[in-house]
């Protein structure tokens, strides 16, 4: 499912919403979550999961092409932990 398919599904479920409004709602949801992470905040959606920012330390690695040692600088990376309800629903075989 892509973002535009999600927009469609929302309109099917809520007949009062036009496409523009549905798009706006979806964009606000993901933009506000992205902005919170950008500020280093945690995002917690009950039943779905939580997003946090994890720090990765600088490390040495090798360029696989020429074997040269390169230093990969420290960086931050978004991390998602699936919530209990969703984890159980996904695993329900």
């Amino acid at each position, binding site marked *: 499912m892509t973002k535009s398919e*999600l927009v469609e*599904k929302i309109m099917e479920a809520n007949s009062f919403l036009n496409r523009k409004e549905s798009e*706006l*709602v979806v964009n606000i949801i993901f933009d506000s979550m992205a902005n919170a*992470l950008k500020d280093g905040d*945690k995002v917690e959606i009950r039943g779905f999961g939580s997003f946090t920012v994890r720090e990765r330390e600088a490390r040495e690695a090798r360029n696989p092409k020429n074997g040269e040692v390169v230093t990969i600088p420290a960086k931050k990376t978004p991390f998602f932990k699936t919530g209990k309800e969703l984890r159980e629903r996904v*695993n329900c075989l």
Partner: protein
Amino acid sequence: MTKADIVEKIYEKVGFSKKESAELVELVFDIMKSTLEKSDKIKIAGFGNFVVKEKADRRGRNPQTGEEITITARRILTFKPSQVLKASINK
């Protein structure tokens, strides 16, 4: 940030009532959950992809007792952040 903060943003920016905004946020996450439950993936451009992966049986150990156990096959959800999201976090 929680769902309540997202509801507040929708209320401010779109002008729906708080009740409507809350119902919409709930609806969006419900649709996402039922999609993932069916093992379909969700691709949100500029944010990331949610993908359900199948894990086979594997051997593991209880770290407390050292006892060997079988970790049963299962489905897990993974999130792969988009390049855009990763870049914005490092700015």
